[in-house]
């Protein structure tokens, strides 16, 4: 190893350390942006170091340079454009898309390296795993992204014999990896592993419903990390191993958190075919419910001293975040304290709702996590539930139903409750929400955006003394 290569290795190790420190800085919103920038600079350093190495090696052909430059320029341009333009509601599909390209790149470099022939037996097993895991991530993430974007139907797509196909794909993938370890430079096992992995990704994600996406994205994120770590084994690049492991750990933690918050095992989500997601099934009311008008709600809110808003995905679906922010500002001007209680699965990926609220200028200390929110909900004069359903259903505290054991927001502890909802439709668990029949609850049947705008307009008309 010459001096340049050795220096580059140290630079890459430094970059890996910065990635870990950057993630550590995400422990608080105050330092998170700095952490991300540190990580980005470290990445730039790693790329520069690698560039120096390949220049020094002098093995890159003229065509090779053109390929490198145009590939990098095209990728960077597309990535930047997507990142700049994406609406915050569409971030989950973008993250999913980046999972796909990351996994895809890991697969491609393993294929390129193995086909080169000088990889040796040592690279064969991690190479095979890289190809399979990366291929699953690539196709699975594309399907997930398509479902979130609405290109692929978000309801679970189940067809006869789907399980058998999935099992067949998994079996072929394992066979491909084993065969590849025996014959590293042979294209046949390589193609088998690749094809089986791609098919498995499609077969696994298609039957999963839209509302399970937070788990799916987190899991695919973890898989991408592992695929990249495997690519590190193949190329003997420790930085890829470290970075991949960090991402894998992060994805694993988020997957577990999301599955717990939904009260479902990761396995049952992967096996899929449950949970239709956004489309409410129209059903009759559970019991007598009290219907209220926007003006009633405005009075309740305007004369409260503490309001806690419980936003759900219905708010984002109706694009009512701006209206919610306006209402919040009006109430705060009147001296009402407004906080937001956010359930972990309120959005389409972990923490999604927080980003949507941050976008409309809600300061982050007002966003309360589940436990924090439950501690203050009993002091709330009014809990305003907008577009959330299952995560507020007190039935979860009793055994023997679909929601039993799911961590919920204790909205029923508030003195008064207002639920903004389009209809009495069921949530994703298909159950009546007992909260709606609570005598303290007033139901405002309307689209979230229209309702919030109407409430805000009514609050504006009060000239009563500010408190």
């Amino acid at each position, binding site marked *: 190893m010459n001096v340049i290569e050795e220096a580059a290795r140290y630079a*890459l190790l430094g970059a*890996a350390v910065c*990635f870990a420190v950057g*993630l550590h800085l*995400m*422990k608080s*919103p*105050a330092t998170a942006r700095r952490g*991300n920038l540190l*990580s*980005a600079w470290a*990445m730039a350093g790693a*790329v520069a170091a690698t560039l120096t190495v*390949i220049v020094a090696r002098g093995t*890159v052909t003229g065509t*090779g340079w053109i*390929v*490198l430059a145009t*590939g990098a320029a*095209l990728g960077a341009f*597309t*990535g930047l454009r997507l*990142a700049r333009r994406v609406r*915050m509601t569409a*971030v989950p599909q973008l*993250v999913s898309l*980046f*999972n796909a*390209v*990351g996994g*895809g*790149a890991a697969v*491609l*470099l393993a294929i*390129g390296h193995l*086909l*080169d022939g000088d990889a040796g037996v*040592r690279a064969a097993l991690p190479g095979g795993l890289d190809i399979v895991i990366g291929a699953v991530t690539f196709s699975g993430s594309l399907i997930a992204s398509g479902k979130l974007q609405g290109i692929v139907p978000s309801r679970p797509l189940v067809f006869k014999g789907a399980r058998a196909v999935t099992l067949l794909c998994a079996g072929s993938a394992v066979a491909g990896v084993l065969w590849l370890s025996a014959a590293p430079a042979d294209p046949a096992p390589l193609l088998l592993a690749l094809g089986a992995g791609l098919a498995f990704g499609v077969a696994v994600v298609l039957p999963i419903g839209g509302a399970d996406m937070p788990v799916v994205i*987190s899991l695919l*994120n973890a898989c991408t990390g592992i695929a*990249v*770590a495997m690519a590190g*084994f193949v*190329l003997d690049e*420790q*930085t*890829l*191993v*470290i970075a991949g*492991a960090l991402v*894998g*750990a*992060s*994805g*694993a933690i988020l997957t577990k*958190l999301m599955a717990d918050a939904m009260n479902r095992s990761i396995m049952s989500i992967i096996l899929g075919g449950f949970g239709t997601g956004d489309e409410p099934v129209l059903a009759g009311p559970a019991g007598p419910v009290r219907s209220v008008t926007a003006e009633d709600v405005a009075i309740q809110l305007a004369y409260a001293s503490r309001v806690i808003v419980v936003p759900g995905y219905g708010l984002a679906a109706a694009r009512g975040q701006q209206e919610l922010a306006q209402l919040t500002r009006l109430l705060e001007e009147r001296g009402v304290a407004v906080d937001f209680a956010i359930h972990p699965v309120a959005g389409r990926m972990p*923490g999604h709702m927080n*980003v949507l609220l941050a976008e409309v*200028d809600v*300061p982050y200390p007002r966003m309360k996590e589940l436990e924090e929110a439950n501690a203050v909900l009993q002091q709330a004069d009014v809990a305003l539930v907008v577009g959330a359903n299952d995560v507020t259903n007190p039935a979860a505290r009793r055994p023997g139903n679909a929601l039993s054991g799911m961590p919920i927001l204790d909205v029923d502890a508030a003195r008064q409750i207002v639920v903004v909802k389009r209809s009495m439709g069921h949530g994703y668990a298909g159950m009546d929400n007992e909260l709606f029949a609570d005598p303290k609850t007033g139901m405002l049947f309307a689209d979230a955006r229209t309702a919030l705008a109407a409430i805000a307009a009514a609050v504006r008309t009060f000239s009563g003394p500010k408190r």
Partner: protein
Amino acid sequence: MNTPMLTAVTVFALALLIGFAVISKVPATLHTPLMSATNAVHGIVLIGAMLVASSADDALGYAIAFAAVAFGAANVVGGYAVSDRMLHMFRAPTRGEEEEAKR
């Protein structure tokens, strides 16, 4: 199992532990930017793609290298850019709001 492989597996295991330790401290509020930032971190695959591109010398090799480098670059640039955009939105309350909240 030979030594370089063993070293790599050791590094992998330790890095996983660091990952678990660091990530478990990230508050739920930041989980989306966290995921998009880790997304960018796995864009490190770009340097692997560059190394593979550096030894490519036939049409298939060039095609694979081109796609891998493009994917990797999109991953890195897009991942960091969108994370930064989101983190920029997370703001602390201004002084006035702080006092308001205390009353």
